[in-house]
């Protein structure tokens, strides 16, 4: 598929790499020749230096026979304009990154010819909100009303370490499915005789209640989360505070008076906004940081986020950090900070999902992709289509591709973690965990 990416910033660069890996023909348009050169050096794309709003440049990029244009320049207005012009010039589908909450709410995307609006900040806030709800996990995704998919790092001295997978149900009185495990950089799709160790990162799928049972019985403290501190009044903080205000006591610490004022104007009254430097340890203590159950480092300055997260982590509090520079992530994991949210990757994944659903393969179309374990393991949600070959066959009789496992089936809005006796029917939503990259067809996955 031919795809034009306009804007080679953080999201644009990741997109180029990811889309090339999925086998697409990508053309990057960016005004900065140096940016173009850097991307050319890392990804097998073609690139054009110029303004993506210009019809001439878009024509040069081959907009006429392109199937998708993705605009992710720093400016919302430019992105929207790019997409409208690209559509007029013949591109089939368009995606724009729109950050400003006002646009995001107002725009009726169809009228302007935009097929998808992506908002990295909003997506990050959703991701973080899920983790705040379930702060044991590094990452949380909802596969249905009750069923969660979590990424969990087994801490040192945990009761779970040393347990064989098939014994979990008996030992902790909890029915969970461990679908993928990362150990020392290698990823396994484990069988029943796999023994968990401390330091393993595992993806667990289960009913929410079963998960709570697992953690309670494994002795992981189940104290309820009440106080959430957000350090930095960025856009993510705005979205997040809006989401969390209903159930938690939210405090935002921001050093810029004007931003504080703006947040106070637009946020619900329950959110406490404090005008102080959240990246100064003394002022943090003054603001009662020790009562916080979860601290989220959200400023736009990544290095500051990292330093303050290390400080908060050393106080023994749960910390969630927003980091976009991939180089920093292993460093954070080394010191034990595992709850890392990267807006650019979330957006890139969202767009990848859209692209894959455009050329949906046989057996069912892709409706979501959840990436876990540093994007090495993919959880792909399919809507089962008419041409699905194994309809009504029991799972134990279906031969799966290697390194692939079915983690949930949603039938009539009811999601279950399946066992060998479940069957898949037309219209169901099936989530498949796989280490194979770029899966688009359910029939292929299920052999």
């Amino acid at each position, binding site marked *: 598929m*031919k795809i034009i990416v306009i804007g080679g910033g953080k999201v644009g660069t990741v997109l180029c790499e990811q889309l*090339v890996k999925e086998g697409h023909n990508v053309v990057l348009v960016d005004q900065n*020749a140096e940016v173009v050169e850097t991307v*050319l050096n*890392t990804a*097998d794309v*073609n690139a054009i230096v110029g303004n993506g709003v210009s019809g001439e440049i878009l024509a040069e990029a081959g907009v006429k026979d392109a199937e998708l244009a993705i605009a992710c320049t720093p400016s919302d207005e430019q992105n929207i304009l790019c997409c409208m012009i690209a559509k007029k010039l013949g591109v089939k589908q368009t995606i724009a990154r729109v950050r400003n909450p006002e646009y995001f709410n107002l725009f009726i995307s169809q009228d302007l010819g935009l097929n998808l609006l992506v908002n990295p900040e909003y997506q990050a806030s959703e991701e973080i909100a899920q983790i705040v709800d379930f702060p044991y996990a590094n990452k949380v995704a909802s596969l249905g009303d009750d069923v969660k998919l979590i990424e969990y790092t087994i801490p040192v001295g945990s009761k779970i370490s040393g347990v064989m997978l098939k014994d979990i149900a008996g030992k902790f009185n909890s029915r969970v499915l461990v679908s993928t495990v990362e150990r020392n950089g290698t990823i396994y799709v484990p069988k029943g005789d796999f023994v968990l160790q401390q330091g393993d990162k595992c993806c667990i799928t289960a009913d929410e209640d079963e998960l709570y049972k697992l953690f309670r019985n494994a002795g992981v403290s189940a104290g309820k989360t009440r106080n959430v501190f957000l350090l930095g009044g960025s856009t993510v903080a705005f979205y997040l505070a809006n989401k969390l205000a209903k159930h938690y006591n939210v405090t935002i610490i921001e050093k810029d008076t004007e931003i504080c004022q703006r947040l106070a104007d637009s946020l619900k009254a329950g959110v406490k906004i404090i005008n102080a430097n959240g990246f100064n340890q003394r002022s943090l203590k003054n603001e009662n940081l020790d009562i916080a159950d979860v601290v989220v480092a959200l400023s736009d300055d990544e290095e500051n986020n990292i330093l303050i997260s290390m400080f908060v982590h050393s106080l023994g509090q749960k910390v969630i950090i927003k980091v976009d520079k991939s180089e920093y992530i292993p460093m954070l994991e080394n010191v034990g900070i595992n709850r890392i949210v990267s807006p650019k990757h979330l957006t890139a994944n969202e767009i990848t999902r859209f692209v894959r659903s455009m050329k949906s393969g046989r057996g069912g179309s892709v409706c979501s992709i959840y990436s876990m374990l540093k994007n090495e393991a993919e959880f792909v949600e399919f809507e089962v289509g008419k041409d699905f070959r194994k309809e009504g066959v029991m799972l134990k009789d279906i031969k799966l591709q290697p390194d692939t496992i079915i983690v949930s089936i949603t039938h009539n809005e009811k999601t279950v973690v399946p066992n060998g006796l479940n069957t898949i029917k037309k219209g169901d939503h099936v989530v498949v965990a796989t280490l194979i990259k770029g899966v688009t067809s359910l029939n292929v996955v299920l052999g």
Partner: protein
Amino acid sequence: MNYKFTLRLLGIVSLCEGALLLAPMILSAVKGEDWLAFVNVIAIAVVVGLPLALFCKPQKKTMRVTGGLVSCALCWIVMSVIGCLPFVLSNNAGFIDALFETVSGFTTTGATIFSNPENLGMGLNLWRAMTHWVGGMGILLFVIAFLPKTEGTTYQVFKAETPGPKAGKLVSKLSITARILYLIYFGMTVLCAVLLLCGGLPVYDSIVLSFATAGTGGFTPTALGISAYNSLYVEVVLTAFMFLFSINFTLYYFVLIGKVKELFRSEEVRWFFSIILLVTTGVTLSLWIDKVYPTFGECLRISVFQVVSNISTTGYVLRDTSQWPALAQTLLLAVMFCGGCAGSTAGGLKVSRVVILAKSGARELRMSLNPNRVLDIKLEGRTADKNVVHGVLRYFVVYLMFMALSVVLLTIFNPTSTSQTTFVDAISSTVSCINNVGPAAFDYASGNFTSFSPVAKVILTVDMLAGRLEILPILMLFNPRSWQR
């Protein structure tokens, strides 16, 4: 440096070369020549290449700029060494001579050390022509194009091998870009061969000549060069194709996808054409005024052919130009620097670089009148990126220094032991080799370098490689830092 990546690439290149050698092997077997030499070389290529290609599995799939440059230079050296073995094993030349000949072939220079190439036999002559064809577009581009995904980033290698200030992709995928380029190249070569065939040339001669023309190389199967055919038709066809192969191949792609206008809109091509027109006029007048040839028509015919031959860096010769007036000789030497367009098979500085240099010079002059004036350098109707302009200036400086060094070394190592024109020889042979043209001033008639001392041959061999790969890759080889992991 990503050693495994480089070694694997070397292995693949050597295997590719082994495959290419099959063609001259079959021909020499059919003609009853020394075909066992080819068999041995193919065996060597496979023995060297197969283990490297099979067992070097790079873990890291990326390559940095230096890695790309060094790998490219190494590949060219390895393939030259393997490619020279048929000459050595068939006892036609010593190692240094054979290496000179092969490098001259791959770099599409066309300078030869064989006084009578017709004695080599058809198989070896086909191989000489094939080295031109493969070297013209580049063997690494071939590897990128036709082998299953070489994994990882090959863009650095592509950049290192493609001449010109900027390496441009045609389509998103590098392998597809390479395939399109080779397809265009192949198609045009076939067209050239067919046209020569129509002119009554034997099949063998048409193929060998079209290979040498396509790569803008200049090897001919006989010492007489093009004058052996004594046919206006052949001259016209060759002139046309030397010109066509010196134009940026991107433009042919545009023509193929229906954007014919781009061909005429290209500023580089217009400059190229203007330079040819201007220089041809000069050479023709110079020949006519001095009454070198009896009629104006003959002066024109010979100077058009010779100018296009030199500017496209092919280096075919029609007449003994060493007897020409000084103006004509100087002009012929001058266009060697210019070369063809970027992204073509021609050598030299490339027209776009020359244009940027000229425009930078003009800019300096204007700036000295109005020091505060804001002036951009425009190319192809757009403001040229500052980095590109600076890159061209830097390249030019390195190019001149490299050339000067080579001239000095050549005068030390005494190029022609008997003649008195050592200085001119040193300059003209360096210019000819570094720009991948072929013939030099001392003996235009055959472009023959037999009389050079072995050290001088090695120096010129390095010059040719440096000229083809645009100096930097070769210099990088001598920088210990680029060998660090």
